[in-house]
């Protein structure tokens, strides 16, 4: 039984007291898709993503991830997803190999799997020599690439990336997106938030959130046509100007 959609959301809402961070958003993400989740700071992207990952309980609405309900089966969802948060979340006081081993282990991968895949991964990232280096000592770009690799190490169906390329140089960003394409080619659905509008062009489909609502959702080319803009920048600016919420 394969679900048609990797993610579905219907009127998904999150309120913190009087404040509605996410206001009735609805969308579907197909399997294998690279889905871009855009929005200004404080638009509600991270909150929406946290609800889908089972880190935050929705106030209203429904959503499924990998075919499971976010209310009832959130622990089951967790087996099928990878997550890379805005904050860097590998253990800086563990080595590269120890981090991979730890996360592989708690997702229940076998020792053999961990050993083989670690070798392959380090080779792929050209980090063979740094296997026993503390993560603390790695440059930021490498850390981010490593964090992404760890997030998909247990071969999840869907990976959630929360501003994965923040603060990273253009070359590394490019490499990072190559990795996203590789993951997508393996059939992993990618759900990614970003600030960089050039990155939005790399996505199959893009949604733009303004003040907790999804204001636009389509492929980048269709959006540009719809808003008669030359680039995603133009589209974003037209929508973001409507925002009433200040940053925060």
């Amino acid at each position: 039984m394969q679900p048609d959609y990797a993610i579905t959301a219907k009127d998904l809402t999150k309120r913190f007291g009087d404040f509605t961070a996410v206001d009735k958003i609805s969308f579907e993400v197909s399997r294998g898709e690279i889905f871009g989740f855009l929005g200004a700071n404080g638009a509600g992207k991270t909150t929406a993503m946290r609800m889908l990952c089972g880190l935050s309980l929705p106030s209203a609405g429904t959503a499924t991830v990998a075919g499971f309900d976010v209310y009832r089966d959130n622990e089951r969802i967790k087996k099928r997803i990878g997550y890379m948060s805005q904050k860097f979340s590998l253990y800086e006081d563990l080595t590269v190999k120890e981090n991979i081993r730890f996360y592989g282990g708690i997702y229940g991968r076998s020792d053999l799997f961990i050993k083989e895949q670690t070798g392959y991964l380090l080779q792929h990232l050209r980090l063979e020599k740094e296997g026993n280096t503390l993560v603390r000592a790695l440059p930021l770009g490498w850390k981010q690439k490593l964090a992404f690799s760890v997030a998909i190490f247990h071969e999840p169906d869907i990976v959630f990336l929360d501003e994965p390329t923040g603060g990273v140089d253009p070359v590394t960003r490019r490499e990072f997106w190559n990795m996203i394409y590789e993951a997508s080619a393996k059939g992993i659905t990618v759900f990614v938030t970003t600030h960089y509008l050039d990155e939005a062009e790399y996505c199959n489909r893009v949604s733009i959130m303004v003040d907790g609502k999804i204001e636009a959702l389509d492929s980048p080319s269709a959006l540009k046509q719809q808003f008669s803009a030359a680039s995603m920048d133009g589209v974003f600016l037209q929508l973001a100007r409507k925002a009433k919420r200040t940053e925060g």
Partner: protein
Amino acid sequence: MRTLKFLLQKEFRQIFRDPAILRLIFIMPVIQLIVLPLAADYEMKNINLAVTDHDHSAYSRELVNKIKASGYFKLVTYNEAYKQSLTAIENDQADLILEIPVHFEKDLVKEDAAKVFVSINAINGTKAGLGGAYLQTILRDYNQAVREKWIQFPRIKLLPTIDITYANWFNPHMNYKYFMVPGILVLLLTMIGANLTAINIVREKEIGTIEQINVTPIRKHHFILGKLIPFWILGLVILTLGFGVARIVYGIIPAGSFVTIYVFAAVYLLAVLGLGLLVSTYAATQQQAMLVSFFIMMIFILMGGLYTSIDSMPEWAKWITRFNPVSYFIDVMRMVVLKGSGLTDISRQLGIIALFAVVLNTWAILSYRKRS
């Protein structure tokens, strides 16, 4: 179970990789155990005494010599004007004034009664109170000695006096170190246990790694066990280290069995670590966690029966100490170390501490949420 293995591996690696934590765990307790019992002395020495002697007789000098010889007092000034002594008190040089009046010798010999005046600087209450009491004892002894010398046969019948002789059971020489050292060891274990667990988890919250953990299918109780077990083991190591210091430095060997102590300590640590976990689930930052555990520790320590006797507390305060795990362990430590009590003797305390452990850890597991 496999998850737990990976969690433990990670925790131990992190602990042993952090030199600051290692220092905190091993060197601090040793130093504190060596320094604190020597400093935290119940006996009052070096009480500064000012003497105003208006009499200048052989008897008055003998009295002053006797006081000096007791070893508790330090004579800061010996003068003829009370004003001078008062200045010494005002300048905080003296704690006590002893004023010997004119005709002290004469009155003592002829009238069979003499008066002296003791004035106490009560700013440092303990010192003044104890100093006053010591001085009274010395004066009484002196009085007795003088009377015996002069009254060859009683002209009047001497008042019958009751002499009290003491037998200090279980600690015959009243060596306060025998109850201070095990007590301080309990405090150290409590502080290190509760603080380390609280800080450890809150640190993961601050760095953001806890979110990465929460998004994995890890089970709550596995995660908590993964945090508890390493610190539980460390706690027992510290206890062992502490008894090593107690034996080498102070020659303290428990009268009872180590098995009794370790059984109790094992359960006690679970309770204390549970408290640390509980603090960590409510605190968002390391500062918050530190402040909360500091607050709790102050109460635990001051109402634990080590520095102040629980028996002499008011009824409501005694009631509070019943919720203080420290008081039970200090009790047990003294029973086992001094009296040689066994498991059956401490079963009541053991039961209560086990209850603490269950309640605190259940509470911690319930309030730890993977999803907000």
